[in-house]
């Protein structure tokens, strides 16, 4: 059993895929940053950003539908911004009553709400495009190049490797619990009180912890056996090419244009 659905990397052969992962990480973060500092109601700039994203995804031969479907992971959070519609002062657009509450939606509030939503939606698609076009080990290399402390990069690398192993283990544990908690047909409630159920879940977590702890000791031994002496050494598989620089600069120029547009044409 493999939990491969975790990995959203899409194997393609495109310029975007071949781009140095450092450039991709930096450009993605800068574009998300640009998104965040665009003023409310900068619809044209939002559209421009999204158009650029669309262009990149087509260029990477990753279907925009993939980005959009995956982007809904951030949707539940939209609820957090709903309140903006009714609390930011402005011209009343519509109003209604929920039981004893009287709610008035203001134009400024609506602009704010949709701006937040669009910022979040475009940003998450950018992050999805990054992961879909970059194998995770390359992202780890990028982090190392970008001066993230070694211990964190190494922890991420090990975490990524054992994520799959431990998730498989967890799924087996969950399945074993499922198999043992068979119930009489028709009886919906099963498996005792909430406390008891929580204890079963907690024991599973404890068991998983101990197995993981012991595994880390075996891994440490395997590292020692191959000459590990406390410092992790790595090869550097990436070198910045002229095309990487060029694309980085193009992205920066786009970013500046988007900001200029956003600051001059916002609703």
């Amino acid at each position, binding site marked *: 059993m493999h939990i491969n659905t975790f990995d959203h990397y899409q194997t393609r052969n495109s310029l975007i895929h071949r781009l140095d992962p450092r450039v991709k990480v930096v450009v993605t973060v800068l574009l998300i940053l640009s998104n965040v500092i665009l003023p409310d109601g900068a619809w044209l700039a939002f559209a421009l950003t999204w158009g650029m994203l669309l262009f990149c995804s087509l260029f990477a031969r990753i279907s925009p539908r993939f980005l959009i479907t995956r982007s809904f992971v951030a949707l539940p959070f939209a609820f957090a911004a709903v309140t903006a519609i009714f609390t930011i002062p402005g011209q009343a657009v519509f109003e209604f009553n929920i039981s004893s509450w009287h709610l008035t939606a203001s134009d400024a509030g609506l602009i704010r709400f949709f701006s937040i939503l669009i910022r979040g939606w475009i940003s998450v698609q950018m992050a999805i495009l990054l992961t879909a076009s970059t194998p995770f*080990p390359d992202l780890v290399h990028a982090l190392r190049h970008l001066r993230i402390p070694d211990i964190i990069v190494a922890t991420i690398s090990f975490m990524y*490797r054992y994520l799959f192993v431990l998730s498989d283990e967890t799924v087996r544990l969950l399945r074993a619990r499922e198999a043992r908690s068979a119930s009489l047909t028709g009886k919906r409630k099963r498996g005792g009180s909430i406390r008891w159920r929580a204890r079963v879940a907690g024991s599973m977590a404890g068991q998983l912890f101990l197995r993981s702890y012991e595994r880390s000791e075996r891994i440490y031994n395997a*590292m020692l056996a191959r*000459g590990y002496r406390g410092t992790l050494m790595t090869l550097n598989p990436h070198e910045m090419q002229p095309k990487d620089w060029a694309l980085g600069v193009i992205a920066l120029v786009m970013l500046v244009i988007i900001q200029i547009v956003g600051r001059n044409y916002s609703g």
Partner: protein
Amino acid sequence: MPIVHDTHLQDKLASCIEHPNGCLLAVENLSFSYPDGHAALHNVSLHIEAGEKVALVGPNGAGKSTLMLHLNGIFLGDGQIQIAGMQMDKASLPLIRAKVGMVFQNPDDQLFSPTVFEDVAFGPLHMGLPEAEVHARVERALEQVGMQIYAQRLSHHLSMGEKKRIAIATVLAMNPEILVLDEPSAGLDPRARRSLIELLRQMPMTMLASTHDMRLVQELLPRTVIMDQGHIVADGPTDELLTDQALLEAHGLEQP
């Protein structure tokens, strides 16, 4: 009490002890207890010459894995260990670890890097080899196990049999003189097991493998060492030991 069944072998051992440098691996009176007090090895002595292929069999908890972890200096017990003429101590440890290629039982413990390439490169890199040499070694090691095209694969996408092969490649990249394998055929389906046996058969180097797989022992390893409760209880030609029904039964083993 250690019983040594084969007299020829005893002569060989004697010569080994007289000229320890002639032996690739010499363990003398090794004892080891875990921190919790559990004694795992009692006065174990074992000598292996270059080119020998030795099976290490015995019930679970006999001390096989503990002994193997000593050969690489991961555990340091009381007694003497010499490998390729080097006394095991802190100073010689890096060299010894390059000479002894440890293949652990569970390849998921041994393959700890995200990609196959990074895992195979780990040993050579930590031996301090230059980049070009590391690349050459990875390529050669993967070729030796027939997995050249797997270099950029992610380890978690491999099958058990593939993982075992890569695990072997990770130590081959260090050019070891002796290959130490813990349960090499555990968890493999018949086809993967068969192909692993064929792979190990082609390996020219000295080999010490702990296993419960008696058919693998019979096919691959001419000499067998039986361990039980921290002692070596028998050491001799596989053909003889594996036909000694009484001996096998006394130590919870079965004929192939």
